[in-house]
Protein backbone atom coordinates (compact mmCIF):
# COMPACT_ATOMS: atom_id res chain seq x y z
CA UNK A 1 0.00 0.00 0.00
CA UNK A 2 1.57 3.23 -1.10
CA UNK A 3 0.62 6.25 0.94
CA UNK A 4 0.12 9.49 -1.00
CA UNK A 5 3.11 11.73 -0.38
CA UNK A 6 1.03 14.62 0.85
CA UNK A 7 -0.43 12.48 3.59
CA UNK A 8 2.96 11.24 4.65
CA UNK A 9 3.81 14.91 5.08
CA UNK A 10 0.82 15.42 7.33
CA UNK A 11 -0.16 12.58 9.60
CA UNK A 12 -0.54 8.89 8.95
CA UNK A 13 -4.28 8.80 9.24
CA UNK A 14 -5.22 7.18 5.99
CA UNK A 15 -7.04 3.92 6.43
CA UNK A 16 -7.68 2.57 2.96
CA UNK A 17 -11.18 1.29 2.39
CA UNK A 18 -11.89 -1.74 0.28
CA UNK A 19 -12.10 -0.92 -3.38
CA UNK A 20 -15.47 -1.44 -4.98
CA UNK A 21 -15.76 -2.02 -8.68
CA UNK A 22 -17.49 0.99 -10.11
CA UNK A 23 -17.37 3.86 -12.50
CA UNK A 24 -16.15 7.28 -11.46
CA UNK A 25 -18.34 9.64 -9.47
CA UNK A 26 -17.23 13.15 -8.67
CA UNK A 27 -16.59 13.61 -4.97
CA UNK A 28 -17.12 16.73 -2.95
CA UNK A 29 -15.43 17.80 0.27
CA UNK A 30 -16.44 20.79 2.39
CA UNK A 31 -14.50 21.68 5.54
CA UNK A 32 -14.59 24.86 7.56
CA UNK A 33 -13.39 26.53 10.71
CA UNK A 34 -14.46 29.60 12.68
CA UNK A 35 -11.66 31.84 13.87
CA UNK A 36 -11.52 34.91 16.08
CA UNK A 37 -9.72 37.26 13.69
CA UNK A 38 -11.64 39.63 11.43
CA UNK A 39 -12.25 38.59 7.79
CA UNK A 40 -9.92 41.26 6.41
CA UNK A 41 -7.07 39.98 8.55
CA UNK A 42 -7.70 36.37 7.54
CA UNK A 43 -8.00 37.30 3.88
CA UNK A 44 -4.71 39.20 4.03
CA UNK A 45 -3.05 35.89 4.92
CA UNK A 46 -4.87 33.39 2.72
CA UNK A 47 -6.19 35.61 -0.08
CA UNK A 48 -2.95 35.76 -2.05
CA UNK A 49 -2.93 32.98 -4.64
CA UNK A 50 0.83 33.33 -4.88
CA UNK A 51 1.50 32.59 -1.22
CA UNK A 52 0.25 29.40 0.37
CA UNK A 53 2.81 29.44 3.17
CA UNK A 54 -0.07 29.41 5.65
CA UNK A 55 -0.52 25.69 4.98
CA UNK A 56 1.87 23.46 6.94
CA UNK A 57 2.44 21.04 4.05
CA UNK A 58 3.59 23.76 1.66
CA UNK A 59 7.31 24.46 1.51
CA UNK A 60 7.18 27.13 -1.19
CA UNK A 61 4.89 28.80 -3.73
CA UNK A 62 6.15 30.08 -7.07
CA UNK A 63 3.92 31.40 -9.80
CA UNK A 64 2.92 34.02 -12.31
CA UNK A 65 0.00 36.36 -12.80
CA UNK A 66 -0.68 37.45 -9.23
CA UNK A 67 -4.37 37.12 -8.46
CA UNK A 68 -5.55 37.58 -12.03
CA UNK A 69 -7.69 34.96 -13.73
CA UNK A 70 -5.46 32.27 -15.28
CA UNK A 71 -2.65 33.03 -12.83
CA UNK A 72 -0.58 29.95 -12.10
CA UNK A 73 1.30 28.67 -9.09
CA UNK A 74 3.48 25.70 -8.31
CA UNK A 75 3.30 24.41 -4.77
CA UNK A 76 6.32 22.53 -3.47
CA UNK A 77 5.46 20.20 -0.64
CA UNK A 78 7.48 19.52 2.48
CA UNK A 79 10.99 20.53 1.52
CA UNK A 80 13.14 21.97 -1.25
CA UNK A 81 12.93 19.59 -4.18
CA UNK A 82 9.79 18.00 -2.75
CA UNK A 83 6.84 16.91 -4.85
CA UNK A 84 4.91 19.64 -6.63
CA UNK A 85 1.34 20.56 -7.52
CA UNK A 86 0.64 22.92 -10.42
CA UNK A 87 -2.51 25.00 -10.05
CA UNK A 88 -4.37 27.68 -12.00
CA UNK A 89 -6.70 30.39 -10.72
CA UNK A 90 -10.06 30.60 -12.45
CA UNK A 91 -12.14 32.81 -10.13
CA UNK A 92 -11.04 35.52 -7.76
CA UNK A 93 -12.98 38.13 -5.82
CA UNK A 94 -11.29 40.26 -3.15
CA UNK A 95 -14.70 41.75 -2.46
CA UNK A 96 -16.29 38.38 -1.76
CA UNK A 97 -13.04 37.12 -0.21
CA UNK A 98 -13.16 34.02 -2.36
CA UNK A 99 -11.05 32.30 -4.96
CA UNK A 100 -11.36 29.16 -7.05
CA UNK A 101 -8.54 27.16 -8.59
CA UNK A 102 -7.96 23.86 -10.25
CA UNK A 103 -5.05 21.47 -10.34
CA UNK A 104 -3.34 21.37 -13.71
CA UNK A 105 -0.73 18.78 -12.85
CA UNK A 106 -0.09 16.48 -9.92
CA UNK A 107 1.29 12.99 -9.58
CA UNK A 108 -1.49 10.80 -8.19
CA UNK A 109 1.15 9.27 -5.93
CA UNK A 110 1.35 12.71 -4.30
CA UNK A 111 -2.36 13.56 -4.22
CA UNK A 112 -4.62 10.77 -5.51
CA UNK A 113 -7.15 12.92 -7.39
CA UNK A 114 -7.95 13.91 -10.95
CA UNK A 115 -10.00 16.77 -12.34
CA UNK A 116 -9.69 18.64 -9.06
CA UNK A 117 -11.08 22.11 -8.38
CA UNK A 118 -11.01 23.93 -5.05
CA UNK A 119 -12.56 27.02 -3.48
CA UNK A 120 -11.55 29.05 -0.45
CA UNK A 121 -13.99 31.58 1.00
CA UNK A 122 -13.92 33.83 4.06
CA UNK A 123 -17.22 35.16 5.42
CA UNK A 124 -17.90 37.28 8.53
CA UNK A 125 -19.27 35.88 11.76
CA UNK A 126 -21.67 37.89 13.90
CA UNK A 127 -19.03 37.82 16.64
CA UNK A 128 -16.62 39.78 14.44
CA UNK A 129 -14.59 36.66 13.66
CA UNK A 130 -14.38 34.76 10.41
CA UNK A 131 -15.82 31.61 8.89
CA UNK A 132 -13.25 29.99 6.61
CA UNK A 133 -14.58 27.42 4.18
CA UNK A 134 -12.52 25.20 1.90
CA UNK A 135 -14.38 23.16 -0.69
CA UNK A 136 -13.18 20.74 -3.33
CA UNK A 137 -14.65 18.77 -6.21
CA UNK A 138 -12.62 15.96 -7.71
CA UNK A 139 -12.51 12.48 -9.15
CA UNK A 140 -10.42 9.67 -7.77
CA UNK A 141 -6.80 9.17 -8.84
CA UNK A 142 -7.60 6.34 -11.23
CA UNK A 143 -10.66 7.15 -13.32
CA UNK A 144 -10.72 3.71 -14.91
CA UNK A 145 -12.84 0.81 -13.78
CA UNK A 146 -11.80 -1.14 -10.69
CA UNK A 147 -9.08 1.20 -9.36
CA UNK A 148 -6.44 -0.02 -6.91
CA UNK A 149 -7.22 0.94 -3.29
CA UNK A 150 -4.72 3.79 -3.17
CA UNK A 151 -6.46 5.43 -6.15
CA UNK A 152 -10.12 4.84 -5.37
CA UNK A 153 -12.90 7.20 -4.26
CA UNK A 154 -12.22 6.69 -0.58
CA UNK A 155 -8.49 7.38 -0.98
CA UNK A 156 -9.23 10.60 -2.87
CA UNK A 157 -11.67 11.79 -0.23
CA UNK A 158 -9.32 10.89 2.61
CA UNK A 159 -6.41 12.73 1.02
CA UNK A 160 -8.31 15.93 0.23
CA UNK A 161 -9.96 15.93 3.66
CA UNK A 162 -6.58 15.55 5.35
CA UNK A 163 -5.07 18.40 3.35
CA UNK A 164 -7.97 20.73 4.12
CA UNK A 165 -8.06 19.78 7.79
CA UNK A 166 -4.34 20.42 8.22
CA UNK A 167 -4.66 23.83 6.58
CA UNK A 168 -7.71 24.85 8.59
CA UNK A 169 -6.16 23.59 11.82
CA UNK A 170 -3.14 25.79 11.15
CA UNK A 171 -5.39 28.80 10.56
CA UNK A 172 -7.37 28.12 13.72
CA UNK A 173 -4.11 28.01 15.64
CA UNK A 174 -2.87 31.16 14.00
CA UNK A 175 -5.99 33.27 14.42
CA UNK A 176 -7.52 31.64 17.49
CA UNK A 177 -10.78 29.75 17.59
CA UNK A 178 -13.90 31.90 17.44
CA UNK A 179 -15.56 32.26 20.83
Amino acid at each position, binding site marked *: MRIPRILALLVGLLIPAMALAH*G*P*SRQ*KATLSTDVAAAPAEVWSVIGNFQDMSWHPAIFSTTGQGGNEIDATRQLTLGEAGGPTIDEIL*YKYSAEKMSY*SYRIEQVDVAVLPVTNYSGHITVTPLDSGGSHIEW*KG*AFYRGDPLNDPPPELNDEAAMAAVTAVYQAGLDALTERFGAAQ
Partner: protein
Amino acid sequence: MRLSSLSALLCCLAAGSAAAGDLAFVTCQNGDALSVLDLGAGTELRRIPLPGKPAGVAVSPDGSVYTVSADSKAVRHLDATGALLAETVLDGGPIGAALDPENGHLFVSDWYNARIWVLDAETLAPVAELATGAEPAGLAIQDGLLASADRDGDMVSVFDLASLSLLHRIPVGERPFGLRFAPDGRLFVGNVGTNDVSVLDAREGVTLATLPVGERPYGVGFARGRGFVTNQYGDSVSVFDLATLEPLATIDVGEYPEGIDVSGDTIVVANWFENTVTLIDAATLEVTGTIATADGPRAFGRFIAEDPAP
Protein backbone atom coordinates in the same frame (compact mmCIF):
# COMPACT_ATOMS: atom_id res chain seq x y z
CA MET B 1 -56.12 22.29 -14.99
CA ARG B 2 -56.25 20.35 -11.75
CA LEU B 3 -54.60 22.89 -9.50
CA SER B 4 -56.55 25.32 -7.42
CA SER B 5 -56.25 28.92 -8.41
CA LEU B 6 -54.23 29.55 -5.25
CA SER B 7 -51.76 26.87 -6.21
CA ALA B 8 -51.59 28.23 -9.68
CA LEU B 9 -50.90 31.69 -8.30
CA LEU B 10 -48.22 30.36 -5.97
CA CYS B 11 -46.73 28.47 -8.84
CA CYS B 12 -46.23 31.59 -10.83
CA LEU B 13 -44.79 33.47 -7.89
CA ALA B 14 -42.44 30.66 -6.94
CA ALA B 15 -41.40 29.28 -10.24
CA GLY B 16 -41.95 31.85 -12.94
CA SER B 17 -43.57 30.25 -15.89
CA ALA B 18 -42.87 26.59 -15.18
CA ALA B 19 -45.72 24.51 -16.47
CA ALA B 20 -47.96 23.47 -13.59
CA GLY B 21 -47.90 19.73 -13.07
CA ASP B 22 -44.48 19.21 -14.65
CA LEU B 23 -42.18 17.08 -12.56
CA ALA B 24 -38.37 17.14 -12.49
CA PHE B 25 -36.62 13.84 -11.80
CA VAL B 26 -33.24 14.89 -10.47
CA THR B 27 -30.65 12.14 -10.11
CA CYS B 28 -28.56 12.97 -7.04
CA GLN B 29 -25.31 11.07 -7.35
CA ASN B 30 -23.65 11.72 -4.01
CA GLY B 31 -26.89 11.24 -2.08
CA ASP B 32 -27.96 8.05 -3.86
CA ALA B 33 -31.40 9.49 -4.41
CA LEU B 34 -33.88 10.68 -6.98
CA SER B 35 -35.37 14.04 -6.02
CA VAL B 36 -38.80 14.46 -7.59
CA LEU B 37 -39.57 18.17 -7.85
CA ASP B 38 -42.99 19.71 -8.41
CA LEU B 39 -41.97 22.58 -10.65
CA GLY B 40 -45.33 24.27 -10.49
CA ALA B 41 -45.29 24.40 -6.70
CA GLY B 42 -41.54 24.94 -6.46
CA THR B 43 -41.08 22.13 -3.95
CA GLU B 44 -39.45 18.73 -3.60
CA LEU B 45 -42.40 16.37 -3.83
CA ARG B 46 -40.56 13.25 -2.74
CA ARG B 47 -37.08 11.81 -2.41
CA ILE B 48 -36.70 8.26 -3.66
CA PRO B 49 -33.71 6.18 -2.49
CA LEU B 50 -31.70 5.21 -5.56
CA PRO B 51 -28.50 3.32 -4.73
CA GLY B 52 -25.35 3.11 -6.83
CA LYS B 53 -24.52 6.79 -7.54
CA PRO B 54 -27.17 7.73 -10.13
CA ALA B 55 -26.25 10.25 -12.84
CA GLY B 56 -27.97 9.49 -16.15
CA VAL B 57 -31.69 10.07 -16.52
CA ALA B 58 -34.30 9.91 -19.28
CA VAL B 59 -37.97 10.70 -18.80
CA SER B 60 -40.71 8.97 -20.75
CA PRO B 61 -43.73 10.69 -22.29
CA ASP B 62 -45.90 8.47 -20.07
CA GLY B 63 -44.54 10.18 -16.96
CA SER B 64 -42.18 7.40 -15.89
CA VAL B 65 -38.41 7.77 -15.70
CA TYR B 66 -35.25 5.78 -16.42
CA THR B 67 -32.13 6.21 -14.28
CA VAL B 68 -28.54 5.02 -14.61
CA SER B 69 -26.38 4.41 -11.52
CA ALA B 70 -22.74 4.73 -12.49
CA ASP B 71 -21.26 2.79 -9.57
CA SER B 72 -23.64 -0.15 -9.29
CA LYS B 73 -24.22 -0.15 -13.08
CA ALA B 74 -27.96 -0.50 -12.47
CA VAL B 75 -30.47 0.82 -14.97
CA ARG B 76 -33.91 1.32 -13.47
CA HIS B 77 -37.35 2.18 -14.77
CA LEU B 78 -39.49 3.91 -12.13
CA ASP B 79 -42.93 5.40 -12.13
CA ALA B 80 -43.44 8.92 -10.77
CA THR B 81 -44.04 7.61 -7.25
CA GLY B 82 -40.76 5.69 -7.27
CA ALA B 83 -42.24 2.22 -7.79
CA LEU B 84 -39.78 0.01 -9.65
CA LEU B 85 -41.11 -1.10 -13.02
CA ALA B 86 -37.97 -2.82 -14.30
CA GLU B 87 -34.28 -3.07 -13.46
CA THR B 88 -31.16 -4.48 -15.05
CA VAL B 89 -27.49 -4.48 -14.10
CA LEU B 90 -24.99 -3.89 -16.88
CA ASP B 91 -21.21 -4.23 -16.92
CA GLY B 92 -18.70 -1.61 -18.03
CA GLY B 93 -19.47 1.99 -17.16
CA PRO B 94 -23.06 2.99 -17.85
CA ILE B 95 -23.54 6.74 -17.63
CA GLY B 96 -25.91 8.53 -20.05
CA ALA B 97 -29.40 7.58 -21.19
CA ALA B 98 -31.92 8.54 -23.85
CA LEU B 99 -35.32 7.09 -24.67
CA ASP B 100 -36.78 6.38 -28.10
CA PRO B 101 -40.46 5.78 -27.30
CA GLU B 102 -41.35 5.20 -30.94
CA ASN B 103 -39.17 2.14 -31.34
CA GLY B 104 -39.33 1.13 -27.69
CA HIS B 105 -35.61 1.49 -27.05
CA LEU B 106 -33.64 2.87 -24.15
CA PHE B 107 -30.07 3.80 -25.04
CA VAL B 108 -27.35 3.76 -22.37
CA SER B 109 -23.77 4.86 -23.01
CA ASP B 110 -20.85 2.76 -21.74
CA TRP B 111 -18.07 5.12 -20.70
CA TYR B 112 -15.46 2.38 -20.53
CA ASN B 113 -16.16 0.35 -23.61
CA ALA B 114 -16.95 2.77 -26.44
CA ARG B 115 -20.44 1.50 -27.03
CA ILE B 116 -24.11 2.20 -26.49
CA TRP B 117 -26.41 -0.47 -25.17
CA VAL B 118 -29.77 -0.71 -26.87
CA LEU B 119 -32.23 -1.96 -24.26
CA ASP B 120 -35.87 -2.93 -24.60
CA ALA B 121 -37.60 0.02 -22.96
CA GLU B 122 -40.12 -2.19 -21.19
CA THR B 123 -38.03 -5.14 -19.99
CA LEU B 124 -34.59 -3.46 -20.12
CA ALA B 125 -33.29 -6.59 -21.84
CA PRO B 126 -30.32 -5.87 -24.15
CA VAL B 127 -31.32 -5.76 -27.80
CA ALA B 128 -28.16 -4.59 -29.53
CA GLU B 129 -24.93 -2.63 -29.09
CA LEU B 130 -23.70 0.34 -31.08
CA ALA B 131 -19.99 1.17 -31.44
CA THR B 132 -19.02 4.75 -30.58
CA GLY B 133 -15.85 6.76 -30.16
CA ALA B 134 -13.94 6.60 -26.88
CA GLU B 135 -15.85 7.35 -23.67
CA PRO B 136 -19.39 8.04 -24.84
CA ALA B 137 -21.27 10.15 -22.27
CA GLY B 138 -24.30 12.28 -23.19
CA LEU B 139 -26.98 10.91 -25.51
CA ALA B 140 -29.68 12.80 -27.40
CA ILE B 141 -32.58 11.77 -29.60
CA GLN B 142 -34.71 13.68 -32.07
CA ASP B 143 -36.10 13.43 -35.60
CA GLY B 144 -35.16 9.79 -36.02
CA LEU B 145 -31.54 10.30 -34.92
CA LEU B 146 -29.47 9.23 -31.92
CA ALA B 147 -26.34 11.20 -31.10
CA SER B 148 -23.65 10.43 -28.53
CA ALA B 149 -20.96 12.78 -27.21
CA ASP B 150 -17.79 10.68 -27.32
CA ARG B 151 -15.69 12.47 -24.76
CA ASP B 152 -12.25 11.07 -25.35
CA GLY B 153 -12.89 10.69 -29.05
CA ASP B 154 -13.52 14.44 -29.34
CA MET B 155 -16.43 13.64 -31.63
CA VAL B 156 -20.11 12.94 -31.91
CA SER B 157 -21.48 9.66 -33.26
CA VAL B 158 -24.82 9.82 -35.07
CA PHE B 159 -27.05 6.79 -35.61
CA ASP B 160 -30.33 6.20 -37.41
CA LEU B 161 -32.94 5.33 -34.80
CA ALA B 162 -34.95 2.95 -36.94
CA SER B 163 -32.11 0.92 -38.46
CA LEU B 164 -29.61 1.49 -35.61
CA SER B 165 -26.94 2.06 -38.25
CA LEU B 166 -24.09 4.53 -37.91
CA LEU B 167 -24.56 7.63 -40.05
CA HIS B 168 -21.68 9.92 -39.08
CA ARG B 169 -18.78 10.53 -36.80
CA ILE B 170 -18.39 14.29 -36.51
CA PRO B 171 -15.26 15.86 -34.97
CA VAL B 172 -16.12 18.55 -32.40
CA GLY B 173 -14.16 20.43 -29.70
CA GLU B 174 -12.26 18.79 -26.90
CA ARG B 175 -14.05 16.44 -24.49
CA PRO B 176 -17.69 16.77 -25.48
CA PHE B 177 -19.90 15.55 -22.64
CA GLY B 178 -23.46 16.87 -22.83
CA LEU B 179 -25.48 17.49 -26.00
CA ARG B 180 -29.03 18.15 -27.13
CA PHE B 181 -31.05 18.74 -30.26
CA ALA B 182 -32.64 22.17 -30.60
CA PRO B 183 -36.31 22.34 -31.61
CA ASP B 184 -35.18 23.23 -35.15
CA GLY B 185 -33.20 19.97 -35.40
CA ARG B 186 -29.69 21.33 -35.05
CA LEU B 187 -27.50 19.49 -32.53
CA PHE B 188 -25.66 21.49 -29.86
CA VAL B 189 -22.67 19.91 -28.13
CA GLY B 190 -20.88 21.27 -25.05
CA ASN B 191 -17.12 20.86 -25.29
CA VAL B 192 -15.75 20.78 -21.75
CA GLY B 193 -12.11 21.05 -22.82
CA THR B 194 -12.41 23.98 -25.22
CA ASN B 195 -15.15 25.95 -23.43
CA ASP B 196 -17.33 26.13 -26.50
CA VAL B 197 -20.41 24.63 -28.11
CA SER B 198 -20.36 22.89 -31.48
CA VAL B 199 -23.48 23.40 -33.61
CA LEU B 200 -24.00 20.43 -35.91
CA ASP B 201 -26.24 19.34 -38.72
CA ALA B 202 -26.36 15.78 -37.46
CA ARG B 203 -28.21 14.40 -40.48
CA GLU B 204 -25.66 15.77 -42.91
CA GLY B 205 -22.75 15.18 -40.55
CA VAL B 206 -21.33 18.68 -40.72
CA THR B 207 -20.39 21.41 -38.26
CA LEU B 208 -22.33 24.63 -38.76
CA ALA B 209 -20.75 26.86 -36.11
CA THR B 210 -18.78 26.94 -32.88
CA LEU B 211 -19.87 29.24 -30.03
CA PRO B 212 -17.65 30.34 -27.15
CA VAL B 213 -19.34 29.91 -23.77
CA GLY B 214 -18.18 29.82 -20.13
CA GLU B 215 -15.82 27.55 -18.25
CA ARG B 216 -16.53 23.79 -18.64
CA PRO B 217 -19.80 23.74 -20.55
CA TYR B 218 -21.73 20.71 -19.47
CA GLY B 219 -25.35 20.70 -20.61
CA VAL B 220 -27.52 22.43 -23.20
CA GLY B 221 -31.22 23.31 -23.10
CA PHE B 222 -33.63 25.38 -25.19
CA ALA B 223 -36.63 27.64 -24.63
CA ARG B 224 -38.20 30.62 -26.40
CA GLY B 225 -35.81 30.57 -29.31
CA ARG B 226 -32.81 30.66 -27.03
CA GLY B 227 -30.08 28.24 -26.09
CA PHE B 228 -28.87 27.81 -22.50
CA VAL B 229 -25.56 26.22 -21.53
CA THR B 230 -24.51 25.28 -17.99
CA ASN B 231 -20.92 26.35 -17.26
CA GLN B 232 -19.80 23.91 -14.62
CA TYR B 233 -16.78 25.91 -13.43
CA GLY B 234 -18.38 29.27 -14.15
CA ASP B 235 -21.32 28.72 -11.77
CA SER B 236 -23.32 30.27 -14.58
CA VAL B 237 -25.54 29.70 -17.60
CA SER B 238 -24.61 31.16 -20.99
CA VAL B 239 -27.57 32.24 -23.10
CA PHE B 240 -27.50 32.68 -26.86
CA ASP B 241 -30.02 33.48 -29.56
CA LEU B 242 -30.88 30.39 -31.59
CA ALA B 243 -31.43 32.31 -34.80
CA THR B 244 -28.28 34.44 -34.79
CA LEU B 245 -26.18 32.35 -32.38
CA GLU B 246 -25.21 35.66 -30.77
CA PRO B 247 -24.60 35.67 -26.99
CA LEU B 248 -27.42 37.28 -25.00
CA ALA B 249 -26.48 36.97 -21.33
CA THR B 250 -24.59 35.09 -18.66
CA ILE B 251 -26.76 34.22 -15.67
CA ASP B 252 -25.32 33.36 -12.26
CA VAL B 253 -26.72 30.12 -10.88
CA GLY B 254 -25.61 27.73 -8.09
CA GLU B 255 -22.28 25.98 -7.76
CA TYR B 256 -21.27 23.45 -10.40
CA PRO B 257 -24.36 23.62 -12.60
CA GLU B 258 -24.74 20.46 -14.65
CA GLY B 259 -28.04 19.03 -15.89
CA ILE B 260 -30.41 21.39 -17.69
CA ASP B 261 -33.92 20.98 -19.07
CA VAL B 262 -37.04 23.00 -19.77
CA SER B 263 -40.57 23.22 -18.38
CA GLY B 264 -42.80 25.60 -20.26
CA ASP B 265 -40.85 28.85 -20.37
CA THR B 266 -38.69 27.92 -17.41
CA ILE B 267 -35.17 26.58 -17.68
CA VAL B 268 -34.23 24.28 -14.80
CA VAL B 269 -30.56 23.82 -13.85
CA ALA B 270 -29.18 21.26 -11.39
CA ASN B 271 -26.41 22.67 -9.17
CA TRP B 272 -24.24 19.70 -8.23
CA PHE B 273 -22.26 21.21 -5.39
CA GLU B 274 -25.04 23.29 -3.92
CA ASN B 275 -27.77 20.63 -3.84
CA THR B 276 -30.34 22.83 -5.52
CA VAL B 277 -31.95 23.48 -8.86
CA THR B 278 -32.15 27.03 -10.18
CA LEU B 279 -35.23 28.15 -12.14
CA ILE B 280 -34.68 30.70 -14.90
CA ASP B 281 -37.40 32.55 -16.78
CA ALA B 282 -36.40 32.03 -20.41
CA ALA B 283 -38.14 35.24 -21.48
CA THR B 284 -36.78 37.71 -18.93
CA LEU B 285 -33.58 35.73 -18.21
CA GLU B 286 -34.17 36.32 -14.51
CA VAL B 287 -33.66 33.69 -11.83
CA THR B 288 -37.15 33.04 -10.45
CA GLY B 289 -36.43 30.51 -7.75
CA THR B 290 -34.45 27.62 -6.34
CA ILE B 291 -35.55 24.22 -5.03
CA ALA B 292 -33.49 22.06 -2.66
CA THR B 293 -32.55 18.51 -3.73
CA ALA B 294 -30.69 15.55 -2.28
CA ASP B 295 -26.87 15.61 -2.29
CA GLY B 296 -25.08 16.02 -5.61
CA PRO B 297 -27.78 16.60 -8.27
CA ARG B 298 -26.49 15.62 -11.73
CA ALA B 299 -29.71 15.30 -13.76
CA PHE B 300 -27.64 14.15 -16.72
CA GLY B 301 -30.21 13.84 -19.52
CA ARG B 302 -33.84 14.80 -20.11
CA PHE B 303 -35.18 14.99 -16.57
CA ILE B 304 -38.42 16.98 -16.80
CA ALA B 305 -41.63 15.10 -17.52
CA GLU B 306 -44.57 17.05 -18.80
CA ASP B 307 -47.72 16.67 -16.79
CA PRO B 308 -49.21 13.51 -18.34
CA ALA B 309 -52.77 14.65 -17.59
CA PRO B 310 -52.98 18.43 -17.63
